């Protein structure tokens, strides 16, 4: 049995045969540390879907951002439209926000479940805002954390000032602003902008309601012991999906087709609502099969094209992904992973689709996979994806995830260059150059890339085919396949296509080690490997541990295919001790590394519960290994 188990490296062995016991309650991120004056603020608002939690959270997050703070925010929601428990989490500080953090300073509870669930994670000195007319905070719920409950008649005040009970959230926002010491004027200005189309009365009632909450808190509570270094720095508050959508258009994407699917739909919504203004054709397709094939058709015809989806939708794109590889049509597919398998947990996060994307479609053809590390990097990654797709005429997958796609972070405007170049040097848009006559669509070339013509160009007429073909695109499978002359063409065509991987590998940036200031990355006692969206929280945990004396570096993988095997092999084989942290059950990148380098990483922390990583959990996992 043990031997058998050791033969199953993709089984997490720890809990294998555990039966009937619960896992340790991690996942909400509190490890009981205490702080006196805190230099950051964590706000959480919870209630039922339909209570207006998302807009409340958004208002608070933007207030923080406009106050010049770095912000991270995440909306936890369910896969139903009304009724499920939802909560919105905001963290703000003067330095970059790398995760949701641990613990809560201000908890705004719109229902009892919010108190019962989230009170346990309060920071010492934190305040629970609740409506005493509808809910209660039991002493044992606050005892362990020494948080203060502050009852505020949310519904009554909402009724009084806005005659609409849904406005409880605005009352709560006002109270939270006061407790946090955030500049209320910024929020007022936001409300003014948001409702100005609805008339002065609506604006006034919103502002009054906000102030009612603010004033009540002022009267009955006291501000938290916080020192937030607000500033005048103007930053963008974006999600990864925002960054990908804007980045795609800035990169030159002229055609996008998509079928709705959480968590990729916001990319569609953004592009759809900006399409005609920015000269992009957006088409909602009848399904993902159509979406990717529409994009392939448009790309063949000459427009840089993309589609986006989540894992279930990508499942349906698998065949056409290979079509793009065979036709040598540039294609960008954004895959925003969510928690599987199958329908899984549609509104929760995971990093478990890499195996699928890596193996997608029958046979072998060159492809690239880029897993962006954070929100600003989403912008860079989508541009790289278009560049590689167009330059090498291959399908490229940007592998994001729900957490990356849907959470907000402040991004320095300098990171967003709207004038992005697109290398279309291998595409012939107007006239066949003399050197390419007679034109051969699939010409054997040293780098495997053959100049590609688009229809409408005279002299370039040919039939692009998913059947194996010769340089001039005639078929070899229908008359002579298996005969020496056709075998020769087949072998060379296969090698021509696969040679593109060499070129892509050359333009791919190689990964490097990172360590917090003061730690020599090359000689750290432990090297923690991570990839994609896990990078940020790992950096935070590593920084904190190093601050307390540990010596840890990180190896942050982003360009997953073609895999930078030489570099990774070099870095890992020099490392003292290695560990990998990833958001899946079977260790997909751990296995990828072993597959590509032969190197095993002996320690891991894997998470597959649908929630993002919390720094306290990551610290704890690393500590076990240190």
């Amino acid at each position, binding site marked *: 049995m043990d031997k058998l188990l050791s033969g199953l490296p993709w089984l997490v062995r720890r809990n294998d045969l555990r039966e009937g016991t619960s896992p340790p309650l991690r996942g909400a991120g509190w490890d009981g540390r205490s702080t006196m004056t805190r230099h950051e603020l964590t706000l959480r608002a919870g209630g039922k879907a339909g209570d207006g939690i998302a807009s409340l959270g958004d208002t608070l997050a933007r207030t923080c951002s406009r106050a010049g703070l770095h912000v991270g925010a995440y909306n936890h929601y369910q896969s139903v439209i009304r009724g499920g428990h939802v909560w919105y989490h905001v963290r703000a500080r003067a330095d970059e926000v790398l995760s949701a953090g641990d613990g809560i300073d201000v908890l705004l509870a719109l229902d009892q479940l919010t108190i019962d669930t989230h009170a346990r994670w309060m920071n010492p000195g934190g305040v629970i805002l609740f409506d005493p007319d509808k809910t209660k905070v039991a002493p044992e719920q606050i005892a362990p954390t020494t948080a203060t409950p502050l009852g505020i008649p949310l519904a009554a005040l909402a009724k009084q000032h806005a005659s609409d009970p849904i406005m409880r959230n605005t009352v709560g926002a006002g109270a939270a602003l006061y407790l946090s010491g955030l500049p209320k004027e910024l929020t007022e200005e936001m409300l003014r902008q948001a409702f100005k189309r609805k008339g002065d009365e609506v604006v006034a009632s919103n502002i009054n309601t906000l102030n009612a909450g603010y004033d009540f808190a002022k009267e009955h509570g006291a501000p938290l012991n916080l020192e937030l270094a607000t500033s005048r720095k103007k930053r963008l508050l974006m999600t990864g999906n925002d960054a990908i959508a804007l980045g795609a258009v800035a990169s030159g994407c002229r055609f996008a087709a998509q079928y709705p699917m959480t968590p990729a739909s916001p990319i569609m919504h953004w592009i759809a609502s900006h399409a005609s203004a920015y000269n992009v054709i957006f088409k909602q397709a009848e399904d993902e099969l159509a979406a990717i094939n529409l994009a392939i058709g448009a790309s063949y015809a000459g427009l840089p094209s993309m589609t986006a989806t989540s894992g279930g939708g990508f499942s349906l794109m698998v065949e056409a992904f290979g079509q793009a590889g065979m036709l040598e049509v540039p294609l960008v597919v954004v895959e925003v992973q969510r928690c599987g398998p199958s329908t899984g947990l549609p509104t929760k996060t995971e990093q478990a689709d890499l195996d699928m994307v890596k193996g997608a479609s029958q046979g072998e053809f060159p492809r690239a996979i880029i897993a962006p590390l954070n929100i600003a990097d989403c912008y860079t990654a989508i541009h790289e994806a278009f560049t590689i797709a167009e330059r090498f005429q291959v399908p490229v997958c940007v592998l994001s995830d729900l957490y990356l796609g849907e959470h907000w972070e402040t991004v320095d405007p300098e990171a967003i260059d709207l004038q992005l170049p697109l290398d279309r040097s291998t595409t012939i848009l107007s006239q066949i150059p003399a050197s390419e006559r007679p034109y051969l669509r699939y010409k054997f070339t040293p780098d495997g890339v053959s100049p590609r013509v688009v229809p409408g*160009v005279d002299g370039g007429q040919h039939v692009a085919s998913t059947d194996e073909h010769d340089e*001039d695109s005639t078929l070899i499978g229908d008359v002579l396949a298996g005969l020496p002359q056709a075998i020769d063409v087949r072998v060379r065509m296969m090698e021509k296509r696969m040679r593109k991987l060499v070129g892509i590998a050359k333009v791919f940036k190689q990964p490097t080690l990172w360590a917090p200031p003061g730690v020599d990355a090359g000689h750290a006692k432990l090297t923690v490997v991570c990839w994609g969206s896990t990078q940020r929280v790992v950096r935070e945990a590593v920084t904190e541990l190093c601050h307390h004396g540990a010596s840890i570096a990180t190896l942050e993988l982003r360009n997953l295919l073609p895999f930078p095997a030489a570099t990774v092999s070099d870095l890992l084989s020099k490392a003292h001790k290695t560990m990998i942290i990833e958001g899946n059950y079977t260790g997909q990148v751990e296995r990828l590394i072993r597959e590509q380098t032969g190197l095993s990483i002996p320690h891991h922390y894997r998470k597959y519960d649908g929630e993002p990583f919390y720094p306290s959990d990551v610290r704890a996992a690393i500590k076990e290994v240190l």
Partner: protein
Amino acid sequence: MTVSKQPPTAEGEPKPLTMKDYTSETKVTWCPGCGDFALLAGVRKALAAMGKHTKDVVIVSGIGCSSNFPHFLTSYGLHSIHGRALPVATGVKLARPELTVIVAGGDGDGLAIGAGHFLHGMRRNLDLTYVLMDNEIYGLTVGQASPTSLMGHQTKSTPEGVIEHPINPIALAITAGATFVARAFSGDNKGLSELVQQGIEHKGFAFIDTMSPCVTFNKWNTYDWFKERVYNLSDQGHDPTNLQAAMARALEFPTLGNDKVPIGLFYRNTSKPTYEELEPALRKGSLLTRPVDFPDRESVLKEFY
């Protein structure tokens, strides 16, 4: 294996195009007698008659005997995957509305694996022409039942006979929203090429269901079988602008029985705008050489503050 595909005419004096200008050097690989030859001739003839430059024509197909179609023409072609010709063609047309895009494929390709796209392709009313090479059988995979195989047809996959109601492509196309719906017959070259030309000329989605006998695997729906049954709608005073009448005729075959097979134009609607005309991003024409149209930086970014 090198075939040079020359455009029909170039600079200098314009000379009238002929079918030969559309005939590639690739040997046609269909079985002698296959119904698909007639459609190939019809498309070549129609394109020549319309004087379409081969550089401006894209033929998109799926997979099947019939889907080898584009290889036999000198225009641009895209021999795609099974069942996806329509979405691929839709992408081509949206990207480049100035091109003439023709979709060709089999009954399995279009009505089995591609059935969903069939509906959605048509309801868009893009200016595409879709020629279905309908042989009531799977040819390339050597003889299984297709969605248009008639009840009782014994094939490799239905040794005791088909027990499903066949799909009625004409009724389906009308229902889906195609604005030009016709049935042609490979035994009637002249009618066929006329319908193809009208279909290409039609501004909107044109669907031409071509009865194209498979001489190798379909021993039921032969040329003779059709010859005994076809009649021309125009001979019966059918009014193609009448939706209800078109639908009534459509139900004659195969829904109501196999005794009569109407051919010709069932339905035409010239008043519906095409998708391209309605698509906001195409108001200024094809996007091929138009760059992204960002206003000033602040206007682009302000929504994120």
